[in-house]
């Protein structure tokens, strides 16, 4: 504590016997990066700055909009069209000028993430899209930084502490242990599409600040290996205990070089990559190919049954657990209409760098029609 003034500022938390001067010193020595200065980021920033976290980074490339103001209450009408990172930094300096606040008026992406994240001890995720969330998660795993995660969906919010070491597991649990494969950004609605009650990110962002402070000063029970869901409508909360997922490591970049090669926008892009699609003629060649394995990715009881060619059945959602069954160099997937098999192809392409992946366009329904036609002609 440098001065009486500094003591005075934090007096009411230092008074807590679980806190004290030692905890305040820890806070003042810690560097926290908040990614996204929006609904979650704003309240997290306000409380972290007020509590005296020594260095705060704010990364956001967005500007303030009128429809942000119902929940991002750090901003006001005069801030519209101004950089969130810069406006937030200015307001937060007015709240606490004894700490160091760094504004990054940029979008945190894999190309700049490791340099920025490396300068901090803890990362708070206040972003609103999966490509950013997976990128930040993977960066924190590689750089060994705890990640205080928060997210919302309409009237519900989630908080968790990822990538924080514990005594139970052989490695720290991260977001990919929960959902190894990123959902597409349009698969799950964000606030812009689904709407959000303004108070909810205020609650969840504040909980993220609380988890961050607990983590830094080592009190209470931070949400390590746990994801908490809070429902603003009935005030219920539910804690899920997380466990290690074998697929998480396989789908994560192995090192920083691999991380830089990742295309997170593409992984979460709703633009479907249809370069895997093949027509019936090419499909017919491949089913004769001894170097190819053909997989029906429909559920096991789905009609029509296929007995025209040799194949195995692995439903789409079980593919990831049945990778060992896929040994051959060429992998051909099909389903009813060609939609699910295209998803399967994208997934297989992520899992296997050394295989050629094909998806039957139009699905088995269309193929059967053509097969019947050809049989009639003969």
């Amino acid at each position: 504590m440098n001065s009486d003034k500094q003591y005075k500022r934090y007096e009411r938390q230092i008074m807590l016997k679980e806190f004290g001067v030692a905890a305040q010193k820890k806070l003042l020595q810690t560097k926290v990066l908040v990614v996204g200065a929006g609904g979650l980021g704003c309240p997290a920033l306000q409380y972290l700055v007020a509590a005296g976290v020594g260095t705060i980074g704010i990364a956001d490339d967005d500007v303030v909009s009128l429809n942000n103001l119902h929940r991002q209450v750090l901003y006001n009408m005069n801030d519209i069209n101004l950089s969130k990172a810069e406006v937030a930094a200015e307001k937060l300096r007015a709240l606490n000028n004894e700490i160091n606040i760094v504004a990054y008026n940029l979008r945190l992406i894999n190309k700049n993430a490791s340099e920025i994240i490396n300068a901090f001890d803890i990362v708070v995720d206040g972003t609103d899209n999966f490509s950013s969330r997976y990128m930040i998660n993977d960066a924190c795993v590689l750089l060994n930084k705890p990640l205080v995660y928060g997210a919302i969906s309409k009237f519900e919010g989630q908080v968790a502490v990822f990538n924080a070491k514990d005594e139970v597991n052989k490695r720290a649990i991260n977001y990919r242990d929960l959902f190894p494969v990123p959902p597409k950004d349009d698969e799950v609605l964000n606030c812009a599409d689904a709407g959000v009650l303004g108070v909810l990110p205020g609650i969840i962002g504040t909980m993220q600040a609380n988890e961050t402070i607990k983590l830094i000063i080592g009190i209470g029970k931070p949400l390590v290996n746990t994801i908490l869901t809070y429902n603003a409508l009935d005030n219920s909360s539910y804690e899920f205990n997380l466990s290690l997922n074998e697929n998480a490591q396989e789908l994560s970049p192995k090192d920083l070089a691999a991380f830089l090669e990742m295309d997170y926008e593409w992984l979460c892009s709703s633009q479907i990559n249809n370069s895997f699609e093949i027509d019936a003629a090419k499909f017919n060649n491949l089913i004769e190919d001894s170097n190819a394995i053909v997989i029906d990715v429909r559920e096991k009881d789905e009609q029509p049954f296929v007995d025209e060619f040799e194949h195995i059945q692995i439903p789409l959602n079980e593919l990831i657990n049945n990778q060992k069954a896929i040994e051959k160099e060429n992998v051909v997937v099909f389903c009813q209409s060609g939609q699910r098999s295209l998803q399967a192809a994208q997934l297989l392409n992520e899992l296997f760098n050394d295989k050629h992946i094909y998806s039957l366009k139009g699905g088995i329904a269309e193929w059967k029609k053509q097969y019947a036609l050809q049989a009639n002609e003969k």
Partner: protein
Amino acid sequence: MTIKVFGQLHDIVGSNLIEVESAANTDELIQQLQLKYPALKDSKYKVAVNRNIIQSNATLQKDAEIALLPPFSGG
């Protein structure tokens, strides 16, 4: 069996609590749910049994507490 449903899955099942007849394990449960709510097939979610997220098929006791957790993205 009562199942708690979170996040966007509300929109598919129409409630935050759903009932199914008993299932011996989680694979069987998922099959039943997909028959009842076909849109679940295209949804990403994790199953929790007694508040533990499971990573593969798990046996279900009659009084098991089951929850379905989808990913959230908003912020």
